[in-house]
């Protein structure tokens, strides 16, 4: 079994083990989940190091070519009547995303250590979900990709429905149906791609090499982009996100906002890769939508007083930046978008973990009811501050690396409309600063108004582990972004080869 299959199957094996344990041994169940996710974390670190070893830390980029530069390939024929294969393999972007997933799920399990209600089922569904997420990033066969994609969306319904708070049934149903609506578009897209390309497999590279007729790309591109964009938080298909994320339990919000929304961005990238003509035609249109995304998310976040809603809307805004970078169809902006996926995953996981921990102590999520908390919980407070600063793009943290590349890249396009949109989007950094700094000052500083809050204790050891890990990685990615950018740049070549080829054709 290859490394990728191992990473994907470990959570699933842990799930089977958990199912065989009676529900009353909740401690054992937690330990199994923790150990499994920890092993996955170690394996994903190995994967990053191994991948960097294979491509070299510096040196030339691969020569132009449409096929993806895959490593750790595993390929077994599966459903032969349709040419479906069990085809695993990673490029730098997927390696980065697998690493992110492993970090976030490990932190998520730590953050839900005190979970008490129907523990067995909770961890079982959580592990099923994460199996799907790993699978999506490792899969290179469109069918397999879609299979894992849906597997990672559906457990959300029960996770939110059973363990959520507030209007959980409504939120869970809305989230599931909207995301499944997105995947309905994707499945149409996959079938059209398969039959129109004439490739006899579902492999990404082979479909891209076979090429899709231009006329098909023109109508299929928006279908698939919206399909993936729904999960990626594309305005106006983002409305599941605030409801879903604010109703979900802590670990689920972390995983969903931190990783699942990245599946959307990742899918959009693949869509651009497969349909370059469609991408060039529709880029400006979607860029307008994503500009609204960035701006609108930040503006609504200013209005909200519930911490989870603030974080959820900031996710909409930040994920908008990912899609914005993609729509710029520019090398630097693509790099920025990918870094933003990584950075936002860490940042949002950190936020949701903190919100969960703070809520457990204060029993409120309204910032108006909190003040002066830094005195009683310095560790949590400082972590929140670092996360916030990363969110508003402070140099030295990961968010800055992402934003600067997206904006510079998108601005280098000569068209005026692009530049105006970049200016608008960049202006939202100010709005972001407003809602983040406001939340920070209200919550952490000033006199303590609620005497109940005097008794609050700071983070326990189990809580400190995930926070420290996330903060460390945010800083690492901010100070030494080289390894990350190397992996991303190495994998962008085929996508750009395809795009350039398409643009040459159009010019002729």
């Amino acid at each position: 079994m290859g490394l990728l299959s191992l990473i994907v199957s470990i959570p699933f094996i842990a799930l089977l083990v958990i199912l065989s344990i009676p529900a009353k041994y909740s401690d054992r169940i937690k330990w199994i989940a923790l150990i499994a996710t920890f092993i996955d974390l170690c394996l994903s670190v190995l994967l990053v190091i191994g991948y960097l070893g294979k491509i070299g830390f510096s040196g030339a980029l691969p020569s132009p070519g449409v096929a993806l530069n895959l490593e750790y390939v595993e390929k077994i024929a599966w459903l032969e009547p349709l040419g479906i294969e069990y085809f695993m393999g990673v490029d730098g972007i997927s390696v980065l995303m697998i690493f992110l997933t492993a970090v976030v799920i490990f932190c998520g399990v730590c953050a839900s250590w005190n979970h008490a209600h129907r523990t067995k089922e909770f961890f079982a569904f959580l592990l099923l979900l994460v199996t799907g997420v790993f699978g999506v990033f490792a899969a290179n066969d469109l069918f397999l990709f879609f299979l894992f994609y849906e597997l990672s969306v559906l457990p959300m319904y029960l996770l939110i429905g059973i363990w959520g708070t507030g209007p959980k049934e409504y939120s869970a149903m809305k989230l599931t149906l909207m995301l499944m609506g997105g995947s309905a578009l994707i499945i149409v897209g996959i079938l059209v791609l398969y039959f129109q390309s004439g490739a006899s497999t579902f492999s990404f590279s082979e479909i891209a090499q076979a090429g899709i007729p231009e006329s098909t790309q023109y109508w299929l591109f928006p279908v698939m982009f919206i399909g993936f964009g729904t999960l990626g938080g594309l305005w106006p298909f983002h409305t599941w996100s605030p409801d879903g994320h604010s109703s979900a339990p802590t670990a689920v919000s972390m995983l969903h906002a931190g990783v699942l929304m990245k599946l959307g961005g990742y899918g959009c990238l693949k869509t651009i890769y497969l349909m370059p003509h469609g991408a060039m035609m529709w880029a400006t249109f979607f860029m307008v939508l994503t500009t609204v995304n960035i701006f609108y998310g930040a503006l609504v976040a200013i209005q909200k007083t519930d911490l989870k809603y603030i974080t959820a809307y900031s996710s909409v805004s930040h994920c908008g930046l990912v899609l914005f970078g993609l729509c710029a169809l520019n090398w630097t902006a693509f790099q920025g978008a990918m870094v933003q996926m990584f950075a936002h995953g860490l940042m949002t996981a950190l936020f949701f973990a903190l919100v969960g921990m703070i809520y457990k102590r204060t029993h409120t999520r309204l910032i108006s009811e909190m003040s002066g908390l830094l005195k009683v919980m310095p560790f949590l407070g400082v972590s929140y501050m670092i996360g916030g600063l990363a969110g508003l793009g402070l140099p030295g943290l990961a968010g800055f690396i992402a934003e600067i590349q997206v904006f510079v890249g998108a601005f280098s396009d000569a068209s005026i409309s692009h530049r105006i949109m970049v200016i608008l989007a960049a202006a939202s950094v100010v709005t972001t600063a407003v809602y983040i700094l406001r939340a920070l000052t209200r919550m952490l500083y000033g006199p303590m108004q609620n005497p109940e809050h005097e008794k609050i204790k700071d983070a326990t050891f189990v809580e400190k582990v995930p926070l420290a890990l996330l903060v460390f990685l945010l800083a690492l990615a901010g100070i030494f972004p080289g390894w990350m950018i190397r992996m991303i740049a190495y994998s962008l070549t085929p996508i750009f080869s395809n795009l350039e080829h398409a643009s040459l054709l159009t010019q002729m």
Partner: protein
Amino acid sequence: MLENILTIGNELGLIILALTVLAIGFLRKHSAAGYLGWSVAVAGLALLSAWLFISPAIDKAAFGGVYQTGPAPVFFKQLFIWAALLITMLSYPGKQSSNVLPYRHISEYLGLMLFSVSGMCLLVSAQELVMLYVSLELITIPVIMLVAFNRNDPRSHEAGMKYVFFSALSSGLLLYGFSWVYGLTGSTLLPEIRDIIDSSPIAVTALVLIMAGVGFKLAAVPFHLWAPDTYEGAPVTITAFLSVASKAAGFVLFYKVVEGFFVDTAVTYITLTGVLATLTMTIGNLVAMHQRNMKRFLAYSSIAQAGYVMIGLSQPELLGKTAVMYYLLVYLFSNLAAFGIVTLVALRSGREDMRDYAGFSITNPKLALVMMLSMFSLAGIPPLAGFMGKFILFAAAAQAGLYWLVFAGTVNAIIALYYYLIVVKWMYIMKPENGKPRIGPITTPAPHAIVLAVTTLAILLVGILPIFLEWAKSCAAGGF
């Protein structure tokens, strides 16, 4: 002669089995007779299934080409016998319930069902119009009695009456269509008709009449009106039988008399099937959303499911047939798992309302898990079997270039997901009123447990293991 008899050995075996089980029912008015009849039926069906499995599936004709078997017929016969076997096991007369109908007359009940199954097997092999029609009646008439089997229950009466009227009407339409076909071609043998028939307006009229007749059997919208009441009133196991086996027989009928005859008018019937499929899915789904009675809910869900399968009918190539046959296999297991739970719950607690299932996942975690898996499989969630089935159906339509049909199918899959999730919601999320679940812990008798285990395994594995799809494909290549 002997060779002819050996060729129809499967059907003969079924009829002998049916007569035996019926005869056991006359033995004595004692519950032991019920057990005996039940055991004989299970053993006989299992043997027949094994025999079908080992006997080579090659083309073989009997009685001057009136009867023909081959890979595709064997596939369907196996499907019918499995369905009958699983449903017989679900009809196990437990100790508490041996005085209730239908368990009090279990031998008669199973005997009638076996007759219907033998009719289905004959239908698959029929190559002649009269034989086709007779086997169709052999399917329908026992089922009418079965639907009205709970004779003390007015709902069962109503169900029976509705089924009589509608099946008579559909038989009439079908027969009328057949007579036009005969008038056009002067032959009753299917292969001859296939060669002679053209695309004249008369042929199109016959096509429409026959489509309507088949539509009734499939419970396709707008010929579905009998289905919900019949499904709700019939004994639960018969509802399962109707929605799985009887429906599969309807698809066989389609392949024999629509796809087989009207190759020249393919454009007409493909468009017609596509429209019917879309209507069936959409209406079935929209109405299913509001159902709170589990049987009625499953009735509408199975109407919608037939709509999905009809997507595959609109693609006459190999992939279309493969998709239909594979989906029927998948649907057999997914639906019987759901019916297994509903039967068990109705038998043990008398509850049929969806709201009664609140807290079901706490009192019966294993049963709830099976029910959830079957709901997700029916909804088409990967990696369960239902997803593979739907994917291949959609792929078949996409191969024919019917993207609008794929789109209609996927949109309907979302609507369907909504109501399947509602069942999951009642089982897993909703808290029972005043904290006491209405359905207590249920002890599962061994036959039920076996059915649930088998169907669950099938739901999990049929989609993942490639062998099932390859089996469907190789059988579909044989043709009818």
